């Protein structure tokens, strides 16, 4: 069991009579880039919300490195090692770029500092603040955002906001990174750039990536394996190119 970073077992949730997701079994191996695709309303984001604790599953369970995380609160799940970005970007808009990332470093074991230590300005407060700022700058440098670090997050262009969201998620040092439509609203050049960035992230930060995307070129160029969802159930899964050629998948997308 433990060879998979993420394993879901018959994961499902129903809202009243509506089964938004049922019997979803995902197996994501370490350092994989795993795609989750499907037509609109297939339940992709619902799965993400289940995995991050926004919704509590009504059926099944899921494991991160063999540890059951079902039923934990969102902040606990993040501390266990699942970080996410959102489909509609959610940044801390009235804070500067560098502070956005520093919020991500909040629970980092290297920068521990209690509230009392901050009140009375113990040396540890200054030390941890300084180290946090350095670490945040380092992360921003990777995403080519260092020059923007003192701008408000809401003033960044769209593509950079996406990058900042990923940087903030990575600051929490996740084992599994969930990206919800990272290429949405990007032009072809930016998308190409994003493919490189995501591959780089996987190697540099040693994370496993699970992503939702509609751009098939992007998915086939990036993902090692995919799962196709339709109406809350798994339609097909396996190696990317093969699965995309699966007749059921083509029917779900094109109709007929």
């Amino acid at each position, binding site marked *: 069991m433990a060879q998979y970073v993420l394993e879901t077992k018959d994961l499902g949730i129903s809202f009243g009579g509506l089964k938004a997701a049922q019997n979803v079994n995902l197996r994501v191996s370490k350092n994989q880039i795993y795609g989750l695709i499907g037509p609109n309303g297939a339940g992709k984001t619902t799965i993400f919300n289940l995995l*991050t604790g926004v919704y509590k599953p009504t059926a099944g369970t899921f494991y991160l490195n063999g540890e059951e995380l079902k039923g934990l609160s969102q*902040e606990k799940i993040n501390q266990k090692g699942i970080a996410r970005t959102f489909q509609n970007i959610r940044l801390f808009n009235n804070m500067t770029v560098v502070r956005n990332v*520093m919020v*991500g470093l909040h629970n980092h074991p290297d920068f521990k500092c209690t*509230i009392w230590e901050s009140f009375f300005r113990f040396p540890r407060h200054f030390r941890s603040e300084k180290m946090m700022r350095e670490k945040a700058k380092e992360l921003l440098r990777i995403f080519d955002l260092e020059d923007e670090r*003192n701008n408000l997050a809401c003033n960044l262009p769209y593509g950079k906001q996406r990058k900042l969201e990923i940087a*903030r*998620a990575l600051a929490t040092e996740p084992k599994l990174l969930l990206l919800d439509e990272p290429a949405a609203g990007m032009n072809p050049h930016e998308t190409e750039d994003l493919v490189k960035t995501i591959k780089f992230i996987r190697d540099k930060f040693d994370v496993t990536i699970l992503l939702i995307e509609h751009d098939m070129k992007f998915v086939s160029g990036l993902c090692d394996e995919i799962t196709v969802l339709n109406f809350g159930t798994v339609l097909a899964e396996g190696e990317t190119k093969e699965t995309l050629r699966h007749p059921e998948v083509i029917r779900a997308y094109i109709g007929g």
Partner: protein
Amino acid sequence: MRIGTFKLKHHLNYMIIAVITIVFGIISLSGGHLDSSLLFLFEKIAISIILAVSLSLVVGFLGELSLGHAGFMCVGAYISGKVASLLASSLGNGILTFIISLVVGGCVAAVCGAIIGIPALRLRGDYLAIVTLAFGEIVKSIFQNTSSESFGGAIGLSTPRYDKKYLFVFAFIIVIITLIVVQNFIRSKHGRAVTAIRDNEIAARATGINITKYKLVAFILSATFAGIAGVLYSYSNYVVQSAKFGYNYSIEILVMVVLGGMGSINGSIIAATLITFLNTKLATILTGDLAVLQNLLYAVILIIIVVYNNAPALKNFRNQYNWSKLFRKLFKSKSDPADIKDDTAKWDVVPTKIEMNEILSIDIKTQEIKDYSENGGNQ
């Protein structure tokens, strides 16, 4: 300005208040005569500043609307008044009694903050506002209906007198302590977590911030200082009457925070000072038949300030005549050759619509600097 890790900007407000305290403290203590109404005004201002700064922690930084701030103040005032009058017989009416009642008042208010906070912070926005409003009114009517031996009931609780010569100095020292605690909290990773919750609660959760903990901490901290302001109030007024702590007073504190700008401690301080000063002065100037005009004038002035600061139609006017620009014009000579040289180097970026004499003036450059500093300065 930056000297090592010491930022002058971050410590300016302590310094200004410290200087005022020291100057007037020395005048008062060395026997110089200060008008008693001035001393009373100082006390009132100090109380308002503490209230505004503590409320700004919840409203401006946590982003939750609390309308029960006067309720916490009421608890602090009554409890400390009672403690002080009990202790005055045994310990004497000295500094020790004052400090003990401060601590007791603050702690009891903190406990109230926690009791109200735990269930209330599951609510959001308007609902939290209603709960806190109800809390304030409940506290008020509880103290109103006590017997005359316990908390004085409707007549009010008389509290021991304290030498007016010293009281305002203590009040300002407490203001500085409030500022230190609140600003140290805000300018730490914990304050950053609180502002993150304000900006986007869902994202803050997903980033691993313990929302309940930080909301509660901010709420309790805010309640504690409201309680301490209540202690000062009871010492300053000799008598505590519950009618004073109605929702009107809570809203007045909220007005100070909103006028000062959400999430700006210095703004809250300035607004608290101005509003208290205005209220007191209007009350002394307009007496007799003109007293009806007090509230009217007060409201008109508030409307003018809010409209001036926010109306889109006045945007150009504000940009042209604002304080920082006035300040720069006063301290910078227009014919400074260095500025003009800088401007000519930027010919290509200047939009062609602008007339020549405008290009050569320093206004464009200062505009750019202002834009940049606006983007750069968070909080």
